[in-house]
Structures are given as C-alpha cells and as structure tokens.
C-alpha cells in the first residue's frame, strides 16, 4: 500500500470539503440510519453524531497507522474488525459512564458499526493517507455528520413538538397543541431530509448555471 500514499494533501481542503460540498449525509447520502432513526430529538441527534464522529476518529487513526502492514487482499475484513472493535469499545464506555445516553440511543449505538461513513472513510481515505491527514479528515467528516444530524434534529423537534431542548437550555416557540406530530414520526424524517437535499442541490445547480452562463458569455465576447 505504501506507494499509494499521497504525500501532499491540503489539510484545510480535506477538512472543509466534508462539511458542505461533500457532506456525508446530504450530498453522499451515507449514514442514513441514524439520520432517519434518531434525529427526532436534538439532544439524541447530537449524541449519536458525536459518537459516530469519535468512532470515525478512532478507526481512521488505527487504519492509517496500520495501513503499512494490512495486505491489500484482506483489507476489507481487517477494516471491519477494526471498526467493530472501536464501536464495541465506545458502546461499553458510554454504557459505563453515560448510562442515560446509552438508554436513550439504544440499538442505534451498536448500529454505528454498519454506518457506511465509517467504513467509507477508512477505505477511501485513511488506508492511503498518513496519520495527520486522516485525523483531519475524520474531524471534517464528523463535523459534517454533526451538522446534518443537528439540523435534522433541530427542525424535527421544533416543528414536531413546538419546543426545543438544547442540552438543558429549553425554550418553546409555540404551544404544543399547534405542533405537527408528523415531523417526529419516521415519515417526517424522510420529508425533512428530502427538503434539505433538494435545497442543497438546487443551490448547487443555480451556481453551476451561473458559472456556465459566465463561461458562455466569455466565449461569446472572445469570439
């Protein structure tokens, strides 16, 4: 694997590209299990996002350190073993130290092991990059996931219950009987996710059209 390593990567680019432009959830449509399952509530969404981020960080570090000795032919089983180990580790730690969070997230905590983002980052980035870029990449992806989950949780809790609980900071936007319970149901997750993806893609297309228009104008003036 050594000759595959890319020595020079722009760290700033690696970090920021994952937040909006290649957001793992809204653009690449990965990590949909926690997005659809746990985002009915802001606190839970942020918790599962943070846990996923920690797992990505751990696996990226381990994989990029071990990438020299992992044979290319068996890299997928090895990566899966590493991911499963770190998820189990995280789950045990959470169970021991934050039992409330373990209770609230339930099955979705061990389900991080099947989260595509974790495997995707290990396979696509960490195994062919050095330690520091891998850490930066993990942080960027975590920030992207946290942003997506936080946004979804915020919108769904606010519209679904009329109030929002920001880790103890509690405020109410409108009375509960005006709330739309559809948004905290699974169907609401699909609607909100689709809306956000639609907005992001239409903004992207508008930008693209603008760029194309400028290019066309330039070529016309040149001719």
């Amino acid at each position, binding site marked *: 694997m050594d000759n595959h390593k890319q020595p020079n990567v722009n760290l700033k680019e690696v970090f920021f590209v994952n937040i909006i432009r290649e957001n793992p959830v809204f653009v690449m449509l990965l990590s949909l299990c926690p997005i659809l399952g746990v985002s009915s509530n802001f606190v839970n969404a942020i918790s599962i996002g943070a846990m996923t981020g920690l797992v990505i960080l751990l696996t990226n570090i381990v994989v990029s350190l071990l990438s020299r000795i992992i044979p290319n032919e068996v890299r997928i089983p090895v990566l899966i073993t590493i991911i499963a180990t770190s998820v189990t580790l995280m789950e045990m730690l959470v169970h021991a130290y934050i039992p409330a969070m373990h209770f609230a997230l339930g099955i979705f905590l061990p389900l991080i092991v099947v989260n595509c983002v974790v495997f995707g980052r290990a396979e696509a980035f960490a195994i062919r990059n050095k330690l520091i870029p891998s850490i930066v990449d993990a942080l960027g992806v975590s920030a992207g996931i946290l942003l997506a989950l936080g946004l979804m949780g915020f919108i769904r809790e606010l519209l679904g219950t009329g109030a929002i609980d920001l880790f103890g900071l509690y405020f109410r936007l409108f009375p509960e*009987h*005006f709330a*739309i*319970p*559809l*948004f905290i*149901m699974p*169907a609401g997750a699909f*609607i909100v996710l689709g809306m956000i993806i*639609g907005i992001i893609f239409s903004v992207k297309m*508008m930008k693209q059209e603008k760029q194309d228009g400028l290019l066309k104008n330039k070529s016309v003036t040149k001719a």
Partner: protein
Amino acid sequence: MRFPYKPSPHIKANVSTTHVLHTVLLALLFVAAWSIVIQYINFGADYAIRAVFIILTACATAFVTDIAFYLIKTDGVKYTTLGERLKATLPKAFKEAPLVTALILALSLPVGIPLYAVIVATIFAEFIGKLIFGGVGSNLFNPAAVGIVIAGLAFGSTIVPPDAYAGATPMATIASHYNWRITEAVGVQFICNHCSLGHIFFGAVRGGIGEAARPAILIALVFLIYKKVIDWVVPVVFVGTVFVATLIFGSYLCLGLWYPVLHVFSGSLIFGAVFMATDPVTTPVNRQGRILFAIFLAMITLIIRFNATHTEAMGFSILIMNMFVPFIDRKTGNITTSKPWAKAAVLCIAWVCAIGLALGISIMLG
C-alpha cells in the same frame, strides 16, 4: 360535390386542460354549496360557518402557496419591480389549479378540524404533492390525497377535539370500534340509531364536509360524465367492486342487503370515486388501465377499512394506487395489438383476484 377540407390537426372538440379544470371546479363548487346548505339545515349555523371558513382557508392557502413558490423559483427573467414580478407570477399560479386541489381537500376534512391544521395540510398538498414534482400534469400523487393523509397522520390526535363540533363521528366509531364487522346485535342497534341509510344519504350524519352532499356528488358525476371530463368506468367499476365484495362479506356475517349499501354510501368513498379516482393526471391513460386501477383501488380501500382503525381509507388507497399507475400504464400501453377477449379475460381475473384478496385477508386477520 364539395368536400370541406382543412389541414391537420383536426380538432374534434374544444377540450383543453383549462377547460377540464374549470368544469371540475364548477362541479366542486356545486358540491361545496350543497354541503354547506345541508350542514346548516341539519346541524345549525355553527357548522355551516365553520365549513365555509375551512373551505375559504384551504383555497386561500393553496393560492398563496402557489404564488410564493413561483415568486421564489427563478425562471431566468429579471423583473425590475415587485409588481411586475407578481404580475408574471399570477397566471402561473392560476395554471396550477390550486382551487381544485384545495376544494377536494377541504371537502374531505371533518368540520371539527382546527383551521391551522387545514393550512398545514393544504401547504403540504400543494407543495409536496404538486409543485415539487413540477406542477399540475407532472405530479405522481394526487395532491388532495396527500393533504388528506397528512391531516390524518399529523393531526390524528387533535383532529377530533372533545368539543361540540366533532366527537367521534358514527363512521369513526364503526371504523375503530367495530372495524366494519358488525356482528353483535349492539352494533346493528348502533347503526339503526345513529346512521340509517336515509340519514347517511342525505347528510344527517356527521363526517367530512363534502360527505354530507351525496345527492350533489351524484349530480356532479352525471354532469362530469356528460361533459366528457371523467371516464364513467372508474366510479362505476370502483363502486361496483366495493358493492359486490361487501355483499359477499355481509352474507358471511349474516347481514342483509343494507350492509353493502352502507359501505358504498358511508365515508368519502363516493366523493373519492368521483373526484379523486378520476384525476386525469394521476390515473392510467387508457381505459383498460383505468378499470384495473379502479378494481385494485376498491381492494385496497376494503382491506384498509376492514383491518385498520382509520376512518378514512380513500386517501391512503388513492396514494397507494397512484404508485402503481406507471406500472399499469406500461403493461396496458399496447392496447391496439391485444385482442378484446384477452383484455376482458385479464380484467375478469383481476376482478375476482381483487375481491378474493380483500375478503380473504380481512377474514383471515379478523
């Protein structure tokens, strides 16, 4: 002898989308007016005023949603003033037929629904059901059915507030308490007391706004068929399938002929059959496909009625069948080559299968 000759296209009748939508709108307005009057006669001015408010709210919301959407959506043209922009937007908003969607939706909602729920349901129906897909003509799902389902799911708990307007309606009790399987004498007594067939037909039973106007719906059906706006086979096959299936189910429960009639005339079944199952955009293109659509629509409606506790099955079944419309269209697309007896055989097999499935599932689960 002279033959009058004109170059093609040879226009047979002056039918356009606008014409179709205006005719449907006229029929809907007639149904709305009739149901408001019936509400006034049967339950008093309170109900009538509430019904008027619900209908007006839905219409206004749908219109505002359309205008807002086209104000935000850029079309590459730059307008200098807001007035100019609004002027360019208005025809587009009118073209989306917001009033048809809003009226179908409002007439399917119960009188007791709070007005903000009407607003939310209409916005969902217009925006998610219609505008996102590219406007009327491109929508995959019936926008009014989207609104009805959203209202039922999102406000299921608050849609029946414990006030004077709507306790549990008799239909809701039949649906949720008896699941339409009226076996005990108590259930028969309940129906005799609260919703005799005459009461139901003339709208003396509380329920959706438009449900009160069953005679008007039938008149509107005749009018729309006469104007060739809707295909008569869809409501006829749909209601006929429901009738035959519930006749069999009624005899299984040892009930009389009133049972299938109760099924046909209760809830928004007839309203949905006339105004939602015949929507030209979200139903199959040719007649064989439409008959298949109507048969399986009846099947899903009955399965939901017999096995779920929802009062209204029409919204769900219309949406479910809308999903299969592209498939039906593809399978029945080549109508000129297939033989008439083959088409008839397919329809007969489908009809028997649908009734068998509906009754089999209901009896097995019940």
